[in-house]
């Protein structure tokens, strides 16, 4: 496997990068949905972000990357207790994956050869403490998406099937990407992704050339290229780590809460998930940038990504929901 493309070297796409960084700061935000054209660097960004994060410490041989012996699931083979550093896992969930493969199932091999009832962990176990990346999430079968969102929210995978009754930790950040031309995601599912960003191919020729230029440099001289961007990547990593540490101490005043609520009411977003995510994301942004309280500026900057997918669709508004959110933000904060 070659090294992933450095995160900081991705040209443009600031909103997508920002959203991904914020979920790294606070995984509780609940996943990112990236909708956009082909070839805009969606999967590159996910892989790059995971490579940028510090390795996690996990027990050797643990199927769920458990950090301590208590977290190690009791159904798995016992481990030696030694731990090692593993890179933050990024698990790809391919289209057409069966439910068995996703949640895990009875280990047929052991059942048939040894007559034992054992559990074979699925992709969710492997994604624990990392990222689960689904390309073309809009084409994934609805019942799998439902299941994924459930697990992502509860942080636990519960299996009750084929005589097995098993649960294990499955805390991961869900990153879904897709091309809206090929099918929409149901609104119920949209709403359950924390953030949503739209990416477009850059239209500016200079920007496009820069993408190709960096790609060429990366492919021809990977070491030099990685070295060149290492400093910037390290800077982002440090900011993420300090953001994680500071997250608990970021204050959200009543005024900020009021702003959140007013914004969501003005936009007519259904349910309370909008407010909760908006606040949480703003808090993560404040922590990432080292400020100790959530300000209107933070809210303003994260409002489009945390609210644009929760609006009732207005097909007559060609500008898209993100700009609608921005307009409303200006009205409410005026």
């Amino acid at each position, binding site marked *: *496997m*070659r090294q992933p493309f450095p995160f900081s070297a991705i040209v443009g796409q600031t909103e997508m990068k920002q959203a991904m960084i914020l979920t790294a700061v606070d995984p509780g935000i609940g996943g990112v949905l990236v909708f956009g*054209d*082909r*070839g*805009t*660097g969606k*999967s590159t960004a996910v892989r790059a972000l995971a490579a940028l994060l510090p390795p996690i410490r996990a027990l050797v041989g643990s199927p769920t990357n458990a950090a301590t012996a208590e977290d190690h699931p009791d159904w798995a083979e016992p481990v030696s207790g030694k731990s090692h550093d593993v890179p933050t896992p990024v698990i*790809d969930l*391919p*289209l*057409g*994956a*069966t*439910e*068995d*493969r996703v949640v895990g*199932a*009875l280990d*047929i*091999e052991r*059942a*048939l*050869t*040894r*007559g034992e009832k054992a559990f074979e962990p699925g992709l969710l176990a492997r994604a624990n403490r990392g990222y689960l990346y689904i*390309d*073309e999430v809009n*084409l*994934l*079968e*609805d*019942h799998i998406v439902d299941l994924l969102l459930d697990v992502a929210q509860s942080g636990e995978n519960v299996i009750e099937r*084929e005589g097995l009754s098993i649960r294990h930790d499955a805390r991961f950040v869900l990153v879904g990407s897709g*091309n*809206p*031309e*090929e*099918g*929409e995601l*149901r609104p119920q599912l949209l709403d359950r992704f924390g953030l949503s960003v739209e990416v477009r*191919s*850059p*239209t500016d*020729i200079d920007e*496009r*050339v820069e*993408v*190709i*230029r960096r*790609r*060429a440099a990366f*492919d*021809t001289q990977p070491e030099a290229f990685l070295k060149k961007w290492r400093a910037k990547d390290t800077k982002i990593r440090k900011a993420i780590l300090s953001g994680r540490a500071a997250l608990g101490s970021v204050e959200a005043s009543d005024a900020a809460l009021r702003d959140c609520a007013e914004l969501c009411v003005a936009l007519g977003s259904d349910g309370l998930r909008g407010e909760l995510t908006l606040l949480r994301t703003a808090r993560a942004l404040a922590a990432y940038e080292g400020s100790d309280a959530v300000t209107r500026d933070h809210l303003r900057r994260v409002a489009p990504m945390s609210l644009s997918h929760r609006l009732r669709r207005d*097909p*007559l508004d*060609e500008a898209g929901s993100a700009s609608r959110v921005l307009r409303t933000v200006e009205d409410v904060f005026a």
Partner: protein
Amino acid sequence: MMQDRLEAWITGHLALTLLAVDPVGLGGLHLRARAGPVRDAFLSRMPPALAPRRITPDIDDTALFGGVDIAATLAAGRVIRSTGLLSRPGTLMLTMAERCGPGLAARLAQALDSGAEQSLILLDEGADADERAPSTLTERLAFRVDLDGLRAQDLAELALGDPEIDAARTRLSSVTLPDEAMILLTETAARFGIGSLRAPWLACCAARAHAAVSHRNKVGEDDIQIAAQLVFAHRATVIPQGDEDAATPPEPEHDGDSGQDRDISDDLRLPQDMLIDAVKALLPPEVLAALSVPRTAPAGKGSGGAGQKRKGNRRGRPLPSRKGRADGQNRIDLIATLRAAAPWQPLRRKAQPDATGLLIRPSDIHVKRYQELSDRLVIFAVDASGSAAMARLAEAKGAIELMLAEAYARRDHVALITFRGDGAELALPPTRSLVQTKRQLAGLAGGGGTPLAAGLRMVADLAQRAQGQGLSPALALLTDGRANVPLPGRTGRAAAAEDAYLMAGLVAAMNMPGAVIDTAMRPQPDLAKLAQTLRAAYVPLPRADAQGLSRAIGTALEG
């Protein structure tokens, strides 16, 4: 024409050669050709450096990624793992790529992206333009070669020798790509309306590979031109404006063969127009035809959705389990497997007296099967405006009743939306009940303006709901003319038409089959255009009775 075919053959070979030089960078080749001597001849000239391994669209995960080989494990009595095709670098050749499902396409795309040194050759035998390999894959492959219309006796011998390809491979890493070349290729891609940034990058790789083949250590203008032709021609979505004489592209001004060997650092100012003309000359004729009208079917079968339901072995109504292979996709029916093994136990025990436990052979394995039938929802959107007249409404009612009469066998549900005056109305929610329908339809009224936009909006809403319930919606739009009532909040005929097209776009994005039935006395060009926006069939039907209507809709939606 002869010349064109030969050109396809030559560019095909060039693409194959370049692919052999840089398989990983270029991703692969999409070969569109029917199985036959021409394709065989083409593939037989494949450089041995590629040596592809054949896979078929029904390959299972174990074969691709490796895993426990259950059959071998059972036979041997110990765990035997198989290595997957993707775990070794190399070239895969996917036969019948037009039948490749989204699941396999996603897995292969992932393998191409992961940097596992894979490349892919798609053998696409699609008969018409709609039947083609998934765009997820073709987007990642640099080249497309179309060999249709070529005859075996036209072929010429022109493959490069293997030593030359090997030499070019070693040269490849030292070929430099000047900045101007990148700019030129990126700009050209943008002018052809190619949004994806993979295209210019693949073109850069192609240019480098071509430079390596031509014994150059720096990408020159010939390389750029050829790369642009090979990579951009089939991706173009617009024809660059600015010069009308596209039919006669000016001959690129080469000053003989000596031009190739010049140092090109300062004269790499290949005029962009020239590059564009070069690509234009290679635009496949069907692309030109498709470009002259608005793009109609970018999604469709090319990408395939999980929305269409199909028979599967994962969910749905259970069927009796059947003997099968455990391939990682199927679910093994344990009980049936044990039941199959049970009678043989004494016999097998005799053969293997020292074995413990159950003696299960691969042939005992039964897999679960499910049948998932999706019901179709035919949404009738009927223009009940004054102009459309009551007669039309009556015919639509008749057609609905006829379709419902057959609905049980065909698993159709039917819904009716009427639009007139200033809004649309769901006259008949999705149903299969004939009795209920007759009662509901009896009291329908007509008259007023034509709020096409409102009707289409309701169609979109209903279709989305239906999809959520696992139905596959289809649309039959019956109208006789232009929209003259816009959505609420706007006024004017122009706004009405604009809204109608906007909503049609929304409906089209849902990717459902449809038909626009033109019920006017004379076919309306406006409606043909609307049908195109809707990506629906256009059926002018000036005089129809209920039976004719039902038949027309049936055939249009089947197609």
